[in-house]
């Protein structure tokens, strides 16, 4: 089956946005690589997890934040278009059912409809401006620092997915898949990643 132009375009826009989010996310994390549970936490209080990373305070969280929000907007707009397109053209139903096994389909659906929305939700929950309008965003999660911690672990799950995704693409023919996702060229083999 051929990838439609829409799927190919949103795939690569999302790739760029995701990489920028990951790089800027690490830049922000390095300003304080310590995780907490509840509303508050700082040096001098107990932590949930001390990541084995150095505290880096050279201003990288400044551009990190600028880039994080720009790329988050790219992923939100692009991802929303993809979801609307996918539902309206039955991309999630028919196309996926024909080409992917149950485990693959389940994974893709969890990523698109659970992990990405969870990243957004926990991101919103860290905003004092947005929680002034919708306090439940953060209270349901148990506090602002809990939201930050969930944001971190959900990001880790997405990274893991990316690693598995790239590994499977690699094992079933990297060049073939790259061509299919870029030009729409139909591959002769049946395996897909």
């Amino acid at each position, binding site marked *: 089956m051929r990838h439609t132009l829409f799927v190919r375009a949103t795939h690569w826009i999302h790739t760029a946005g995701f990489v920028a989010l990951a790089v800027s996310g690490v830049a922000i994390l390095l300003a*304080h690589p310590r995780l907490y549970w509840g*509303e*508050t936490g700082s040096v001098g209080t107990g932590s949930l997890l001390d990541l084995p990373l150095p505290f880096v305070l050279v201003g990288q969280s400044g551009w990190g934040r600028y880039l994080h929000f720009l790329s988050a*907007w790219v992923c939100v707009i692009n991802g929303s278009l993809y979801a609307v397109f996918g539902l309206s053209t039955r991309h999630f139903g028919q196309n996926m059912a024909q080409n992917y096994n149950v485990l693959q389909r389940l994974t893709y659906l969890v990523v698109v409809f659970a992990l990405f929305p969870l990243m957004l939700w926990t991101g919103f929950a860290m*905003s*004092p401006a947005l929680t002034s309008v919708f306090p439940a965003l953060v209270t349901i999660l148990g506090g602002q620092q809990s939201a930050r911690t969930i944001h971190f672990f959900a990001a880790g799950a997405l990274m893991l997915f990316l690693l598995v995704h790239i590994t499977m693409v690699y094992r079933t023919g990297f060049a073939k898949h790259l061509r299919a996702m870029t030009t729409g060229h139909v591959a002769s083999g049946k395996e897909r990643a």
Partner: protein
Amino acid sequence: MSRVLSRRRLITAGFGVAGVSGLAAANRIASRYGLIPPDHGGIYGIGETLTYASQRILMSHHSLAREFNRSQISNVFPVNGDPPQNPAYQRLLRQGFASWRLVVDGLVSNPLSISMAELKRYPSRTQITHQACEEGWSFIAEWTGVPLSHILNLARVLPQGRYVVFFPFDESWDSLDMLEAWHPQTLLAYAMNGQELPTPHGAPLRLRVPRQLGYKSVKYLSRITVTDTLKNIGKGLGSVSPEWGYSWYAGI
């Protein structure tokens, strides 16, 4: 094939024209309603403007930041940076800020110079709020002070005033739009957890803006100015933060 391509080209051109005129219209509307932040330039400015504009529309009804119980107040209150080292501040500090005054000027019809004793006679507000540093850590504390709106009312802000600029004794000046400046929880705080404001937390007077990250809450205040444009202050980016690489709007 050529028919498909020409149709595709036509559609692309149509989207292009609609996109450009749509952006131009959106830009006019956004600047009219104050939805464009002062650090809107460059590639990052697109993200900043989308974030600032959408949050400003959502928050136009003065939504209140979450407030907490006394039992939720933190045990640790870290600070970043040292108190100003300049002689003017150090002299005031040694004298217990006895001769300190807050100057309010700019686009106001009644400029003010207020002593701490006068400030403490004004109606006060006490609130227990969460403060997050942009680095990622946070604490909850109780703050007491005069709502900035009370001072703006006393000084009688002129209709053309669009921003309130805060100058401290160090270089960390900043500004707020009128929505945040008139917000009931935006305080000029002189007490923290029931005590005089500790020096590292901004004595004698600091701003508290609980709907934004900690760095917007300017410490060691000296002067407040109302202005219609931020273009002539510093590098024209609205505060010292964008000059140091951090965004002006910090509602996140």
